[in-house]
Structure formats: C-alpha cells, structure tokens
C-alpha cells in the first residue's frame, strides 16, 4: 500500500498540473527573452486575486469568467513589465543581472500594490481579502469514479493544463509564429536578420506566459484552503526549482522536473514519514534535495552548463 494513498497520488497529479501551469511559462519566458523574471510570482498572485475580487466583490461563480479575466490581467502585467522596464533596459544594454534586479523591484511594487488593493476592496465590502477561503466554482462538475470523488479542482486543472499544453505544442511546432518564437529563443540576432519581428514575438510571448501563470493562479483558488497575497511568494522557489531542472530553456525537461518535484513533495514525503519517521515538516527540504540531485547528477546544458572539458575527467567523468 503506497504511503498516503490515495491522496498522495492525487495530490501529486494536482501539483504536477500546477507546476506545469506555473513553471512552463517561466521557462518559455526566459528562453525567449533571456530575462530571469522575479516578478513571475506576481502573475500567479494577480491571477489568484482577480478570481478572488471577482468572487468577493462581484459574486462571480464561473470558473471560465475568472480564468479569462485572469489571463488578461496576468498577460497585461507581463506585457507592461516588458514595455516599461525590460525593453528600455535591453536598449541600454544592461547586463542580465541588472534586468533581474529590476524585476525584483517590480516584484516588491506589485506585491504591495496587491496589499493596497485588498485594503481598498475591504473598505468597500467589509470582507477580509488578506486571507480568503477556497472558491467553489459552479461551472465545474464533481466527477464520481467507482465510489470515489474526483475533486473539481483536479478536473479543472486537467482541462486547463491539457488545453494549455496542446495549444503550446501546436503553437510552437505547427505555426509560423511558434517557429518565430523558437527562432528568437535560439538565436536572436539570426532571427532578426531573417526578418522575424523580434519585438512582436517578445510581446506575444510575455502576454502568453503571464496569462498562463495567472490561469494557474485561478485554479489555485479552487484547490487551496486559504489564499493570501503571500501565497504565490511562498511557492515561487519550488516553481523556479522546476524550471531550473529544465535548465530554464528546455520545456520537456521542465515537464519532467514538474513530475519529479510533485512526486517528491507528495509521495516522497509520505514515504519518508511512514518508513523512516522523518517529520512532515521536512517537505521543503525534499524539494531542494531533489533539485540539487538532479542538477548535480544530470546538469542541464541550458544557458551554459557543464564543466569545462579540461576538468571533466578529474571530476568523475560524464556530463
């Protein structure tokens, strides 16, 4: 009997889908724009809060409406960041470290703006938006298999993640826009020379990435028990860890990373707890150990990974 069965398996699946929606956009945005975006957690947080404000202020019960609104909100934030901060910095030939710190400044700004918005919403409705409960969306059905209820958040996540995954695959592989995105990611200079409008591709990519992460945030509100403005920040390290397993450039490795980390966090900790008596409070520890093991055993040849050749033989061979 697997430890924590059946909920650890179901939760693993659920978290896998969440990490897909959170980390794949992060990898995609880095790959195309080479910006390590700290304010990625804001896309998720604003997605969550779009759903929450729609529910708390306007009484919205529809997941579809919330998802569309969140997609637009997250996409707009991403686009705004690009237009107002990342593009000017690129034009001034700022080094990547600077753009990263600028995104950190944006992260702080968006975070506290969200707290202020929650305050204003409270002033209007006298409801507490700083800590909000789970939202039960009316348009997602519960599914019963045998005598087992599949949670509606799992269903919605499956639907959304599948839709996103298929759409992304078709986009990247079958359309010329997708080809353009891949070209810009692989070799920006060559892409521009070939006539690809890099700026338009970048804008589209940012919009897509911000929007997808925000939809993930809406799904989160149907799954998690309590949502606060700090919820997205509390898991951003895991989201980055998954993307880093993919080397920040490989989408397929990111997906594998999502699977590995979601399994480690749910089944892994349950196993360790049941068989070795390790306290459940070690859960974040497992995540990072998994990440480090993957990085050391199989370093992703992302931006510039791997040892210089001269030292590879001495350090135990292999990549």
């Amino acid at each position, binding site marked *: 009997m697997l*430890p*924590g*069965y059946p*909920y*650890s398996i179901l*939760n693993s699946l*659920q*978290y896998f889908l969440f990490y897909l929606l959170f980390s794949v956009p992060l990898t995609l945005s880095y790959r195309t724009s080479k910006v390590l975006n700290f304010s990625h957690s804001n896309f998720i947080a604003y997605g969550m809060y779009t759903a929450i404000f729609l529910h708390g202020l306007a009484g919205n019960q529809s997941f579809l409406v919330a998802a569309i609104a969140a997609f637009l909100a997250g996409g707009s934030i991403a686009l705004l960041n690009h237009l107002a901060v990342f593009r*000017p910095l690129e*034009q*001034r*030939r700022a*080094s990547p470290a600077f753009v990263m710190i600028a995104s950190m400044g944006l992260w702080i700004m968006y*975070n*506290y703006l969200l*707290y202020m918005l929650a*305050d204003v919403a*409270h002033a209007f409705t*006298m*409801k*507490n938006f*700083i*800590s*909000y*409960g*789970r939202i*039960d969306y009316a348009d997602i059905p519960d599914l019963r298999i045998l005598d087992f209820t599949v*949670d509606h958040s799992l269903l919605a996540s499956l639907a959304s993640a599948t839709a996103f995954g298929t759409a992304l695959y078709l986009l990247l592989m079958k359309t010329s826009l997708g080809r353009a995105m891949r070209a810009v990611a692989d070799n920006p200079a060559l892409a521009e020379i070939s006539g690809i409008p890099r700026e338009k591709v970048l804008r589209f990519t940012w919009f897509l990435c911000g929007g997808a992460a925000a939809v993930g945030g809406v799904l*989160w509100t149907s*799954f*998690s*028990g*309590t949502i*606060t*403005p*700090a*919820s*997205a*920040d*509390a*898991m951003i390290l895991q989201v980055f860890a998954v993307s880093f397993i993919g080397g920040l450039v490989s989408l397929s490795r990111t997906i594998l990373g999502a699977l590995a980390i979601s399994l480690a*966090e*749910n089944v892994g*900790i*349950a196993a360790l*707890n*049941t068989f070795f008596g390790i*306290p*459940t*409070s*070690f*859960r*974040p520890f497992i995540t990072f150990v998994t990440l480090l093991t993957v990085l050391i055993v199989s370093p992703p040849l992302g931006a510039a990974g791997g040892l210089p050749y001269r030292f590879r033989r001495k350090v135990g061979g292999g990549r």
Partner: protein
Amino acid sequence: MSEESKGKAAPAGKKLSISALVPLLAVFIVGLLIGFALAGVFGAQQAAQAVAPQEKRTISIGFTLPLSGELSSIGKVWEKVVYLAIEDLNAEVQAYGFNVEFKPVILDDATSAEGALRNVQTFAQQGIKVIIGPAASSQVKAVKSFVDSNEIVLISPSSTAPTLAIPGDFVFRTVGSDAGQAKVLAVLAFQEGARKVVVFHRNDEYGNAFADFFEKYFKELGGAAVKMPYQTGLSDYAAEVASLASRVQAEKVDAVVLISFDTDGGNILSHAAKSPVLSAVRWFISEGPHGAAELKAPAVGEFAAKVKLLGTRPLFIGNPLYEDFKARLKSKYGVDATVFCDTLYDAVKLAGWAIIRAGSSDGRAIRAALVEIAKTYYGPSGWTIFDESGDKANQDYGVWAIVRTAAGYDFKDVGVYERGSIVFLEKPYP
C-alpha cells in the same frame, strides 16, 4: 563586461549622466530628510516639559504590526483594533479630565525580526517610550536587548514563548503561557473520550511548546499522543494533510489535535474536509483559527459538524466587555475579532494609563506604573495582572465550536474549564 559597458557608455541621450542623477538623488534624500524632520516636529512630543493646562498634549504610542508577510491576516485586523482602542482610550482619558491625546504610530514589520528591530529603533528615536508589538516571539527576542538597554516598555499581545518569561526586563505580555491552555485542551480531549491522538502542530516555538505541554498533560491523564510537526509559511498543506491521514489510519488514533494559526488552520481544515479518513475521527483545536473567516465556509462548517470539532481559547466566559468590544469592532470597522484582539486592546489601554500615571517619560517609571495599573484592570481579555516575569498571570479558558446559524456558520463559545474538567453550557452538535 566592464569594457563593453564603458565603451558604450553614452548611447544617444537615452540615459541620465551621473552628473544629472546625483543631484536628483540628493534632492530626493533631502526631501526625505525634510519629511523626517517634519515627522519629528509633528510626531512624538513626550511629556517631560511642563505645559500650560489649556494646551492639549499629544503622546505617541508605537505599534509594530505584521501588516505583510506570514501573519498579515492577523495584522490587518489588529490595525483596526488599534484604531478602536486609541479612540476608546482618548475618550476615557478625557472623561477623567486629562487634557491628553494619544496618537498611534503604526509601522509594518513584515513579520520579520529585523523589521521589528528597525521599527522599534525608529520609535525610540522619535522619543516614544511605549511600544506595542511585535507579534511573533522570534521578533520579540530580536528587539529585547534594545528595549532593555534604552528602557522602553514593550508590550506584546501575542508572544507566548516560554523562553521569554524573564523577570526584571522591559518586555511585558498581555497573553498568558500556553501551558494552561494545553492542559485544558488535554482535559477536553480526554473528557470527550480520546485516548490516543495525533498532535498536528506548527514547527515553530509556539507549536512545539504547545505540543510538548499537551503531550505531558495528556499522558498524566492516561492518554497517548503522537506528535506530527508541519513546516510553517508554506502556501498550501495538502501534502501534509495526506500524510496526516495515513498516520491517523496507521496509528488508529481517536482524534487529531490541531495547533495552528488562522491561515494554515483554515487551509488544513479545508483539505481535511475532503478526506474520509480524517472526517471519521474527532478534532480538537487550539485558539489560533478562532474567529477566522475561512472557518465559516460551508465546507468547513459541515466538516466541523461531522467530526464534532471543539476548540479551546483563553476566555473569561460571560465577559460583557468582550462581547461589547467584539460588537463595536464589527459595526465600526467591519472585522470579526480574531485571536489576540482582546489582549491587544487591553495592551493599548494599559499603556495609555501607565503613561499618564507615571507622569514622566522615564521608562522605569512607566514600567512601574504599568505593573500597578494592571493589578486592578479588567478588560475584554479579563484580568490583566502580570506575574513576576511580566506575563499575564491569570487566565480562564473556554471551549468553542462552529455552529450552524441562520446566516451560515459561526463561532460559538459552548463551554468553560472549571477545576479540572470541562463544563458544557450547551451541546453544539446533536
């Protein structure tokens, strides 16, 4: 990298040169310094000078609250409690004929230790002699040496760490030790028939100390407890709840004892509501989630009825001051009173009266006055008398449940702890 950026140092006028930027920065900083100075002028004006009797004195009290970060949901409610308490304090003080007005100076410490220290230092440098907060024990520990050296009275309404029960310092706590509450929780669980429990607790000082006390008292009564800590500050606890479910099944326990705060408690209960294993055992809770809006959700309310959820909390049952305070907080500011709102309110009142009674801005005088005032003050949190370590000496405890009302679900105090057993005033669950 450096050669490149130097060589391309001035692409056609798109960048401010340092000669333009340095004045800009200088103006900004000077502007802040002016604001800083104005703050000093209009801010704290402490009592030391003799003033003409007609002139109203303004006395500032510093508040370092967790308005962002992990405890922000509690902090936001506290902010409203502070406004209410200061209003009431001013009305009372003026009714007694003192021409004094108290002003709250509120700073956010983001639930961090360094933030708390920075805020406390800012208050000290403005001449404020009484500071209320911070919320977490780890924060109190970081500011303790500063307030002790500078003789500033610090009153925390929520820190319960046993390691801060130190006599002779400037740190006071209007909240009692958790040992008492753990005993009541143990008696409650035992009385309700639990003999083997899993204690699912936060892995911080509050959770660990509470769990240790609970285990000790529960064993004394004849029961057995298994401790299961969970990491704090995470955004979701589904994995932990799944592990809890398998533990409950494996150890065949009668009940789960949850020791948490509001956000994590609400999260855990929402996930537990979906688990058939966890819905089949009894649940007993500490005071952390009491009052939180997430627990009034229908899913949690139904779960509470199913598992006959009961919690303990510090309470002087039938205290009309508490009911009045709760009602006014709701009607005026639209927030429900959550944990430690009553201790915060009383901390403000005590601070104000101690400053007036001391008659000077000497920290030692204010400290002595505080101890005296607390001996005879009874407020929404009951008797506030301090023990020799500066912590709340006496506390009664009540039992609460989540009951169904006409408007949905709500919290209700249903019992009281009296001389070693729980006396139920009503049966919350059929």
